[in-house]
């Protein structure tokens, strides 16, 4: 079975981001870019399934500018087998991403697609669900555990108030949550091998997808500064404040 893992190039999670002075978006000039951490968890899960003999090939795919090839190479350095770069300099919205991925899935015929639950840049959290709808495949989102048994996939999901386990028929879509695994370090031997692994180049047009934006960003603003908290002297005072001031108990 082949596993497809879409990976997105985003601002590195350690970077302190800044909004552009004109509010048109986030300033990306000279900013360190990395693989979306949730996608990294996706690559790790795919590799673990391959190592456990449940999968035979791990293919990483990225949609973005030429530099997204570096993100693919990062996936290859973790141990993925090959990459597909769908090259476009335009901003691509979740629906267009899902449509392109549908094209990739039809060409590659994977048994499983593992996506990050969301990208840490725009936090949309839509692509996995949209892809599932477009393909008519089952989906297990926000996964904290994935078990393959024959052609049945058990996905433990992190939902409000607890965990939910769903059984899916394969082929299926999984989106990863933070606690699914801890991604490995790209090992030195794998980094050296990554250079020689193949990356196919495609364009959105190859999949007949029109990436024209349907949404318009009106403005981007910094989050408001956090107000200082208060210190309470005793448990009794805390309970009293939660009752009278916060009104939560």
């Amino acid at each position, binding site marked *: 079975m082949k596993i497809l893992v879409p990976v997105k190039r985003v601002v590195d999670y350690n970077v302190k981001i800044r909004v552009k002075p004109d509010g048109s978006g986030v300033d990306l000039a000279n900013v360190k870019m*990395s693989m979306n951490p949730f996608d990294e968890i996706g690559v790790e899960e795919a590799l673990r399934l391959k190592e456990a003999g449940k999968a035979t090939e791990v293919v990483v795919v990225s949609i973005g500018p030429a530099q997204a090839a*570096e993100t693919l*190479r*990062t996936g290859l*350095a973790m141990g993925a087998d090959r990459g597909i770069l769908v090259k476009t300099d335009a901003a691509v919205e979740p629906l267009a991403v899902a449509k392109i991925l549908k094209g990739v899935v039809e060409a590659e015929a994977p048994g499983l697609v593992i996506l990050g639950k969301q990208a840490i840049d725009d936090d949309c959290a839509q692509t996995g669900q949209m892809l599932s709808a477009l393909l008519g495949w089952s989906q297990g989102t926000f996964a904290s555990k994935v078990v393959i048994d024959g052609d049945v996939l058990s996905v433990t999901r992190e939902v409000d108030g607890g965990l939910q386990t769903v059984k899916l028929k394969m082929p299926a879509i999984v989106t990863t949550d933070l606690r699914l695994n801890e991604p*490995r*370090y*790209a*090992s*030195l*031997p*794998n*980094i*050296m091998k*990554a*250079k020689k692994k193949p990356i196919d180049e495609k364009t959105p047009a190859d999949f007949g997808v029109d990436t024209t934006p349907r949404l318009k960003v009106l403005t981007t603003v910094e989050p408001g500064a956090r107000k200082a908290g208060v210190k309470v002297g005793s448990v009794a005072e805390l309970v009293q404040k939660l009752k009278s001031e916060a009104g939560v108990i």
Partner: protein
Amino acid sequence: MDFALDFEQQALVNSLEEFCRRELYPHEAVVEELRYVPDEIKQEIRRKSLEAGFDGMNLPEEWGGPGLDKQTKMQAERVMGKPSTALGQCMNRGVTGILFKCRDEQIEEYLLPSIRGERKNAFALTEPGAGSDARAIVTRAERQGGEWVINGVKQFISGADIADFIILIAVSGTDQTPKGPRKRFTAFLVDKASPGLRVEPMKSIVTRGYNPTMVYFDNVRVPDSKILGGEGEGFNTANEWLYDGRVALSAHCVGRAERIFDMTKEWAGSRKAFGRTIGEFQGIGFKIANMAIDIKLGDLMVKEAAWKMDNDLMNRTEASMVNYYCSEMVFRVADNAVQIFGGMGMMEDFPIQRFWRDARIERIWEGTSEIHQDVIAKDLLRPYRN
């Protein structure tokens, strides 16, 4: 000229940085407190470093390493300057250059176990009466009944407390030359369990956990087979090892300065006084700017030095220049950081004081700043000497 890191270099840097952040930084406070690395932490780092393929990363291909070029190696070493030295040492990235002189059974007994990380060594040259002036050492090895008998005292020997064997430089005789008597220096492999060998800890304020020691040799007997690289050839080290050591130290200084600077920017940008962040005051702003420029210059010098090594253009003057600049630089950066942190920079609960203490040794070991200046000046003025 291309200053960008290629994919391989960048990926290795990213991976190592993540490793340091996850596996080494969290243990730093404990090591600082205990002054040694607890065994379980050591084992865990070893295991994870092995898994990640970082073990042996500095080894040449003929000894099973990846054969990285110097540029890649120095970029990796820049990252390894960020964590505490003691914790970084738990990763087995390579072996002391001089060990490659091992021959015959020495290879099985010392070199290979060192490569596998099973045996650690400490290099013992410095003595109470011989630091920068290494030729002034007096520890002697005398031939007695087919064996060498070693007597003397070594000082500031890093890591001898946790080492399995000592690479010792001793005086094995004196040659009469037209210029007067000349000492013969010889390197010996001495097992730490040898009768008559004693290691005593020294209490240092820097690089806690990677501790300096006194090593006493009292009639320690070793056979001929423990001579490393031939009798009288103790100081014939390959230039490559010398340059490697100096440029790697410089790269460590750059990495450490970067880490100090990151903490300092954070502080200057958030600590408030007189209703503004302190970074908004010019006095602090100028310091921030100068620190950034200082670090960039060190980084460029390391990159140039590595490029020179890769292209066989390195010489000892250049090695001393980069070493001098970077070790002075990291201390300037650390000292400015303390100034910007103010009183908080002196508190043991904050890591800044540790970086400040640790930065100080860089101007002393691997050649003092003054020795490097002396080398540079002598080399540059040699053509004008009568």
